[in-house]
């Protein structure tokens, strides 16, 4: 894999291109990548072990924080598994509201991805514009659910908040604004030369490679595998809604961009359908505190791909085992395949194209003392204090700053 001749450069775990910690070891000959290996696990926080120590209601909020961007996907997937074990049949209105928030989350996740992709290839204007438009859908989500990201709309047996007529108007108005913007971005992605140059033919994953390596979601659908859990294994209200599964055969990053933009357009009319067909009735059903023993597997089409939760209960109010398989885990294995004989400059956009989603943990830092050559492990705390002391010697005293600031509060 890594022969000794090439220059080996580490990308990550702390690297501006990768928003979250995953580390790649890339060996280069000139500008060409000859081999790459990926190292994961920096974000392991032991969520599955923690779930076994908490009740089901508390677990919803823990599972929601597995991923910062697609929190609704994980909480819906978990709650559906628990409802299936408990045999709860949630009211139709709750199903439609879950689908509404799911599609709004897909819209904000794809717009975020479009901006990050633009930033990875140095097109910051696209980042600024897409993230400005994303604020429209974030405000809608904040108004509907009470928070911009971790919505907390799900509870076992249904949803916690309802939607009134005025909010329905706002959602429809926002969809029209976003649809015009997305049409412009589709036209831009297809016709802007520098964008095309940086996206076409990059990160190629052929159809059977994608199948063999188990690529899911937009990464798979850009290589011709049209698997979409919303269509194959419908959950919530997707059974009663009609929509197309977007899949192209470009097999490269450009194809993934087209798939995500196509899905944005699909999400807009899905949201309109949900608002139009929203049935009347209760929004949640009373759920028992102790869930009877049993097991269930629930699947969900997260913005990044198929998300799978396995829950096993043992009759108490705490789950016996919760297994979360995030979509990125399935896609990360095809990254090494995509990176083969690509340029180093394509590395960030190829990694960003599968839209990886991790988060970071507290780490020790190993500092080598140049005078006495002794290497010691310095925890964060000492570095923080060293920083403060260093500035104090320079006459900048933070204590007085605190007093001044707190006086003004």
């Amino acid at each position: 894999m890594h022969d000794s001749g090439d220059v080996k450069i580490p990308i990550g775990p702390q690297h501006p291109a990768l928003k979250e910690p995953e580390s790649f070891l890339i060996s280069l000959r000139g500008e060409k990548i000859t081999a790459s290996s990926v190292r994961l696990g920096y974000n392991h926080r032991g969520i599955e072990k923690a779930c076994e120590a908490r009740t089901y209601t508390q677990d919803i909020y823990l599972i929601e924080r597995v991923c910062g961007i697609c929190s609704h996907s994980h909480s819906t997937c978990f709650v559906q598994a628990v409802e299936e074990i408990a045999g709860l049949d949630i009211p139709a209105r709750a199903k439609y509201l879950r689908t509404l928030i799911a599609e709004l989350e897909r819209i904000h996740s794809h717009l975020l991805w479009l901006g990050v992709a633009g930033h990875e290839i140095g097109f910051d204007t696209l980042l600024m514009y897409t993230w400005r438009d994303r604020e429209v859908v974030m405000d809608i989500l904040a108004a509907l659910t009470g928070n911009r990201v971790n919505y907390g709309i799900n509870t076992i047996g249904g949803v916690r908040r309802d939607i009134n007529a005025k909010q329905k108007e706002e959602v429809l108005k926002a969809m029209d604004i976003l649809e015009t913007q997305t049409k412009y971005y589709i036209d831009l992605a297809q016709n802007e030369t520098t964008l095309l140059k940086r996206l076409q033919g990059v990160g190629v994953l052929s159809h059977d490679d994608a199948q063999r390596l188990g690529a899911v979601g937009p990464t798979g659908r850009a290589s011709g595998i049209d698997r979409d859990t919303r269509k194959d294994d419908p959950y919530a209200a997707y059974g009663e809604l009609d929509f197309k599964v977007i899949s192209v055969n470009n097999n490269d990053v450009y194809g993934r961009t087209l798939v995500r933009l196509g899905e944005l357009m699909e999400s807009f009319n899905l949201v309109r359908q949900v608002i139009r067909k929203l049935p009347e009735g209760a929004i949640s059903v009373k759920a028992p505190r102790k869930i009877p023993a049993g097991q269930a597997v629930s699947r969900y089409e997260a913005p990044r791909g198929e998300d799978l939760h396995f829950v096993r209960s043992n009759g108490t109010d705490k789950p016996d085992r919760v297994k979360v398989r995030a979509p990125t885990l399935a896609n990360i294995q095809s990254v090494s395949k995509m990176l083969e004989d690509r340029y180093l400059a394509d590395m960030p956009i190829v990694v960003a194209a599968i839209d990886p989603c991790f988060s970071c943990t507290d780490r020790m830092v190993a500092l080598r003392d140049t005078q006495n050559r002794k290497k010691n492990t310095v925890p964060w705390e000492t570095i923080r204090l060293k920083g403060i002391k260093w500035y104090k010697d320079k006459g900048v005293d933070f204590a007085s700053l605190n007093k001044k600031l707190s006086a003004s509060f």
Partner: protein
Amino acid sequence: MNEEAIKQELINKFPYLQEAITIKRKGRIFAQVPADKFDAVFAYAVKEMRFAALSAITGLDRGDGVFEVIYHLNQEGRILLNLCVGLEKDKLAVNTVTAYCPSADIYERELEDLLGIKVNGLAAGYRYPLTDDWPQGEYPLRKDWKGNLASKEVPDA
């Protein structure tokens, strides 16, 4: 190929699975497979019955000294076949399935790291998800592991 037909075909091929297969609901088939016959059933399901995609591998410690490994296979995304293998505490080993599904590699490393289930034939590589300086013999997802790691002195990296 609906759930009934799949169940019937499995039972014809492997008669000992007669009462071990249950259809929980549309698209979910659970099958309890004895450990020694697991490789044959898995190969048959992947090769002949087009359960080509391995969605995930779940490992769990039932607490009563029996561990379980569940292979979630799906057929064109619609039907999920969950092959469940029980393992005794003293003989915690399974054979790798990376020959049929290369994507299983990272799921099997997770089994090894978090539950200590030995996967024979798994290629060498980085451990996932725990760190390199994680002490040997500590398997966090086991029921008897209480996470008293903080007290132990972390070896110098």
